[in-house]
């Protein structure tokens, strides 16, 4: 395996090996650009994957100290787990379920579409769907997304989704499908077809689902142009007297510090760690943190407006058999102010195993007793959805550094604050009611509302904006303040859209790789 010297100042240093960082590393490697990927977590491979919800949570989650703040229920019920993401080779693409949806055109233009919204900080992206379409296609080909781009059929429908789909049909809906998913429905790209194992979110043991763990990262390493260093937690990014970044300091598994020189630095640590790194890299020249002249680093934290709805059907469903997110309902993804909220939402069938169902049906200290136990006795007759809709950017929703407490690396602990906007309350009420009606159309007896889970979709904390005073990065993820410092993950999102973020993260990373290679060749960076 290739190894680069710590003093090699010609390398691109990529921080994080998930959807953004892993993709960028492989794209650059294929173009002959040399990079070092620094990944805080361990190296994993397919043999680490188990069909066990808690075992995988314990094995791969980011469990370093972190606090929930703000007015969401999680500040009480998940006080140290605001988000559920992975720490390891492959990042959250080990956990992810594979839903690969594109933004709608209006979702890039939320400010123009919704107008100004009280209490929110809604803006337009500096790019639109027409600009992104070719990059979406590249991402779909790379990841192997079922649908027209690849020609791979969507997956067969499992029991849980068939129930949901029939409810949709009976309530006059038409946009319900078992895709697009970044899961092979046929053998493709050296990976097998989905065997309906279930446990997609615990990692796909056979590699049918796309993950940088067994696609982008090994391919990047195989070129000889990329070195992935695991157990390498970045502590800070350094810069020279001219204000260009030139090195990254990280700690290895023994806590020893190393300093890797760099020509370009790309931050892809997911939306909590990425702004945290920039804030932790404050210096005399950049007292508020790197790339933070706008004051927007860490602000506008978005996940999604979410909840779960589980219905008890008259007969057995066995929802756990097969693909975890087996189908998607898109009928509610449009903007219509008369619904009482801005933006739209998806309903995604989502099976939970008994352990997670029992933990999340009624999270927190109150989740026990006769009604919870009684509901769980209906487990094998349940079908359910994860509802997810647009979450508006708000300045108060932010990643901040704890004033006194530090983690095992000596870095201030991040505090992740999230308080729903009125828009969220209106939207969730609508989501719950729509889902209940769909399930009641197929005979549901009981319908349960589950509050938001710890965030798996994190966005917006280093957002893109054409105006350097309103955002952190430009349309290529390049920071407005420092030419050779990039943001390569979901933290660059200007709006959250209703859809799951990863396809867009990957598409942006492919596009960014082109730009970085071009700018390096032109000696601009």
């Amino acid at each position, binding site marked *: 395996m290739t190894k680069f010297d710590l003093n090699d100042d010609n390398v691109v240093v990529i921080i994080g090996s998930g959807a953004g960082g892993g993709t960028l590393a492989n794209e650059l490697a294929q173009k002959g650009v040399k990079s070092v990927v620094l990944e805080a977590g361990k190296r994993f491979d397919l043999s680490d994957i188990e069909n066990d919800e808690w075992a995988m949570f314990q094995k791969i989650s980011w469990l370093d100290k972190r606090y929930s703040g703000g007015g969401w229920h999680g500040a009480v019920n998940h006080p140290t787990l605001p988000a559920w993401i992975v720490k390891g080779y492959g990042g959250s693409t080990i956990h992810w379920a594979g839903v690969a949806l594109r933004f709608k055109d209006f979702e890039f233009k939320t400010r123009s579409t919704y107008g100004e919204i009280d209490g929110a900080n809604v803006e337009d992206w500096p790019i639109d769907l027409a600009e992104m379409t070719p990059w979406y296609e590249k991402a779909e080909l790379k990841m192997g997304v079922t649908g027209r781009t690849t020609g791979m059929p969507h997956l067969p429908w499992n029991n849980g989704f068939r129930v949901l789909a029939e409810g949709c049909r009976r309530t006059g809906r038409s946009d319900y499908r078992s895709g697009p998913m970044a899961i092979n429905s046929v053998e493709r790209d050296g990976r097998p077809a989905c065997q*309906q194992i279930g*446990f997609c979110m615990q990692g796909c043991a056979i590699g049918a689902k796309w993950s940088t763990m067994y696609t982008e990262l090994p391919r990047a390493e195989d070129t000889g142009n990329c070195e992935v260093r695991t157990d390498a937690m970045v502590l800070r990014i350094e810069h020279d007297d001219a204000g260009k970044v030139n090195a990254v300091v990280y700690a290895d598994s023994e806590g020893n510090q190393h300093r890797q020189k760099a020509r370009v630095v790309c931050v892809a640590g997911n939306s909590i760690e990425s702004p945290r790194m920039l804030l932790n890299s404050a210096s005399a020249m950049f007292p508020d943190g790197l790339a933070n002249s706008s004051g927007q680093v860490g602000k506008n934290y978005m996940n999604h407006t979410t909840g779960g709805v589980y219905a008890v059907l008259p007969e057995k469903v066995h929802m756990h058999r097969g693909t975890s997110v087996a189908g998607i309902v898109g009928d509610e993804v449009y903007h219509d102010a008369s619904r009482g909220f801005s933006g739209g939402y998806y309903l995604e069938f989502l099976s939970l195993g*008994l352990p997670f169902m029992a933990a999340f049906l*009624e999270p927190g200290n*109150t989740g026990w007793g006769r009604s919870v136990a009684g509901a*769980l006795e209906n487990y094998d007759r349940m079908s359910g959805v994860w509802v997810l809709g647009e979450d508006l950017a708000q300045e108060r929703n932010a990643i901040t550094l704890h004033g006194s407490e530090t983690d095992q690396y000596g870095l201030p602990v991040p505090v992740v604050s999230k308080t729903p906007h009125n828009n969220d309350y209106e939207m969730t009420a609508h989501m719950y009611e729509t889902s209940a009606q769909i399930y009641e159309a197929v005979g549901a007896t009981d*319908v349960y*509302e589950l509050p938001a889970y710890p965030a798996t979709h994190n966005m917006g904390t280093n957002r893109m904006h054409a105006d350097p005073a309103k955002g952190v990065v430009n349309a290529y993820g390049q920071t407005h303040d420092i030419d050779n410092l990039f943001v390569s993950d979901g933290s660059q999102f200007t709006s959250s859209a209703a859809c799951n973020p990863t396809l867009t993260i990957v598409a942006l990373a492919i596009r960014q790789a082109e730009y970085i290679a071009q700018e390096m060749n032109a000696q601009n960076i």
Partner: protein
Amino acid sequence: MTIRFHRRGKEKGGSAAMNRRMFLMTTTLAGVTTNAMLGSASFASSAVLDEAQGASLLRMIQDIYPHPDVLQVSHYEAIAATVMKNAEADAATASGLTDGLARIDAKAQELFGTPYTGIEDPDAREGLLRHFQDEGFFQGVRWTAYFGIYDNKEVWPLFGYEGSSVEHGGYIDRGFSDITFVPEGPTLEERMADVQA
């Protein structure tokens, strides 16, 4: 306060099912709590709890996740044994537990004039325990019960959960799409046509 029903269906099977459950909860389990259980070796040998407290603990675990039609008393006894083992291994846990159980009994005396295990109405017992649900000892017992039931591979089949499938080649040939009360999904040809149109 507890689980959020969006809409709650009418209790199926009417009062008969409910009555059976009430019967089991108020009689069978209560009976077991004070009779069969006390003979069980794991409890008798506890260094932390006396017999009455052992009975309270078992009753509490049953009240936290009552599944009289699904689980055996032995399932609950195994959980109680784990709680006691943890308490034996850690003095703070032990005193938290004995103190907590004592306060539950005191509250039961105050409200109902009987020890906790003497309260016959399961709703009343649950209501009593709700006073303590934010306390460490209670949540300790609660999570031990949670893992002993819902994360217990031996118990899963009783709830119709089949768990790991990779060793069986997935669910692809094991009923992932076998229900009959809703239509089948589209065929491969239809799904192909959908993406090629």
